[in-house]
């Protein structure tokens, strides 16, 4: 019951609904592109290079005659796979580190906290470049680097949340009546920190989309056989002076996807807050009477999410 009302609150917010709509569209595009694209995204044809947008080529063609619309559609699949995998890795790493940093014996707990503080400073792209130097560039490198990189951020945010929840009376009561650590974690801690997790998950996915675009642009992400928005940008960059309009489409696709994930994060945060949930949509954030100040990392717009 409670969950349904949170979802309803999410979709009642225009930004939340628009974000959910775009992401749903992306998912459909990813599935459809597995079986159908207007034209084959990899077929080159020197006679139809740099065609302007037309009915046959919705976004025009690139320098080797590939249909940009088909390529952009095919690349949604890559984006979805990277974003979901990176999100899963980030949540697993984050949850494991956060649990290690909050539920264990004091020395382990504090050592983990220091480790999290140290690791959170490392820029994800440097982790990715180190991995690319060792293994060569690939989408797996992107997923591992952003997953681990953002996982540490998740750990830092949720560690504080877990520490707070663990000190609550209902957890003490559950412990006193014989519940083990695993049971406490599953029944009390996880449901209470779930909103924070969902927010962080969407931010992690946004980061991974930007990282994939950046690394594929540099040549260390998607391989030549994989359609990728970042890779397309790199291909088109060489002819930017002559055909500047072609770069609009892949860039727009990345921006809208990241925007949707960021907005979804904001909307979930507001919708999950019972104090904001029952207000009419659109006034949720006005007045700024959110319970936590801007210094709370779970609630400030994550400053580390930039490409």
């Amino acid at each position: 019951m409670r969950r349904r009302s949170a979802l309803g609150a999410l979709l009642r917010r225009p930004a939340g609904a628009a974000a959910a709509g775009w992401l749903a569209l992306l998912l459909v595009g990813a599935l459809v592109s597995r079986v159908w694209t207007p034209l084959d995204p990899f077929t080159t044809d020197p006679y139809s290079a740099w065609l302007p947008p037309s009915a046959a080529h919705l976004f025009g063609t690139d320098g080797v005659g590939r249909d940009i619309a088909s390529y952009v559609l095919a690349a949604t699949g890559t984006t979805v796979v990277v974003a979901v995998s990176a999100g899963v890795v980030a949540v697993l790493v984050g949850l494991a580190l956060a649990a290690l940093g909050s539920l264990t014996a004091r020395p382990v707990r504090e050592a983990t906290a220091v480790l999290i503080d140290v690791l959170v400073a490392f820029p994800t792209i440097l982790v990715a470049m180190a991995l690319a130097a060792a293994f060569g560039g690939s989408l797996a490198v992107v997923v591992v680097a952003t997953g681990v990189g953002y996982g540490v951020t998740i750990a830092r945010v949720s560690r504080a949340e877990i520490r707070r929840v663990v000190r609550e009376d209902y957890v003490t009561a559950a412990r006193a009546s014989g519940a083990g650590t695993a049971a406490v974690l599953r029944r009390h801690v996880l449901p209470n920190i779930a909103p924070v997790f969902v927010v962080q998950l969407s931010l992690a996915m946004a980061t991974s989309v930007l990282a994939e675009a950046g690394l594929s642009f540099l040549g260390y992400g998607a391989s030549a056989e994989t359609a990728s928005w970042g890779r397309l940008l790199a291909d088109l960059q060489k002819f930017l002076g002559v055909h500047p309009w072609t770069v609009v489409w892949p860039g727009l696709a990345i921006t809208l996807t990241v925007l949707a994930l960021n907005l979804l994060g904001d909307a979930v945060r507001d919708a999950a807050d019972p104090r904001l949930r029952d207000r009419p949509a659109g006034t949720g954030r006005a007045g700024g009477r959110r319970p936590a100040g801007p210094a709370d990392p779970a609630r400030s717009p994550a400053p580390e999410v930039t490409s």
Partner: protein
Amino acid sequence: MTRFLLGRVALFALGLAVASVLIFVTLRLLPGDVAQSIAGTTGSPAQVAAIRASLGLDQPVVVQYLDWAGGLLRLDLGESLVTGTPVADEVAEKLGVTLPLAGMSLVVGLAVGVPLGVVAAIRHHRPSGAVLGVVAQLLAAVPVVWAGMLLIALFGVTLRVLPTQGFPVDGWEEPGRALRSLVLPAVTIGLVEGAVLFRFTRSAVVGALDEDYVRAAAAKGMTTTRALLRHGLPNVLLSVVSVLGLQVAGLVVGAVVVEQLFALPGLGRMLVSDVGRRDLTKVQGELMTLTALVLLVGLVVDVVHRRLDPRLREQDA
């Protein structure tokens, strides 16, 4: 303060140590034999062994690490595996492009993000504030690569007033020319970073509007805006300072991508090409330098924040 400073410096040192281990271990996972790839397909086993010995690759990994880490303490990053030249010299030269670029980007980001963030917060009930918010939300989602491409298209194709590719060969000999070639790259990074700073500033100011001291000042006859600027802003700026450390990570990411896009001979571009060549010692040195810079800025920001914040200063007294 001394206690805080010692603790913070210890954390910085620990960060450097952890970074050096992680970077070293990751690059040792490298499949294949570096010595073999230097010798090429025609190298005899004896030549390969000689190269391996000269690079110290026949030593145990721990010894190799200690060698490298010992060099780091003397600011010696070793020699390139491919060309044999000292890595530290080249890194220092490239920093002459990357550091000014990062500095200019930060200035652009602050100049755009903070004032507009304050304005948007003060007007958050009015359409103009909402429009600013939407623009910032949109800009924060733009990938740096694409922002740079659009600026190149705009300036290189249409306006033609600023250089969009490269850096003067003689470096900073002609400061005006060098500076001009960094303007568009810095604006690219600065706009995207500025959007994030904008959102942070705005939510900090909106929070401050609700604080008792702003309301008390307003009750005593100040306009809300004046009360905010007089009493709220110092607090807001403090929290902006505290996120600058995290922003620097964004500057590094931006520099790597933007230097490639604008063909700037900086550390980021050097890293990208050395990863391609798998020049192990150079990649190690570059990653270590960039990480050390990020950690150092984090340290400075924390110390400055501590000095500026009267509440934290009192704790020290």
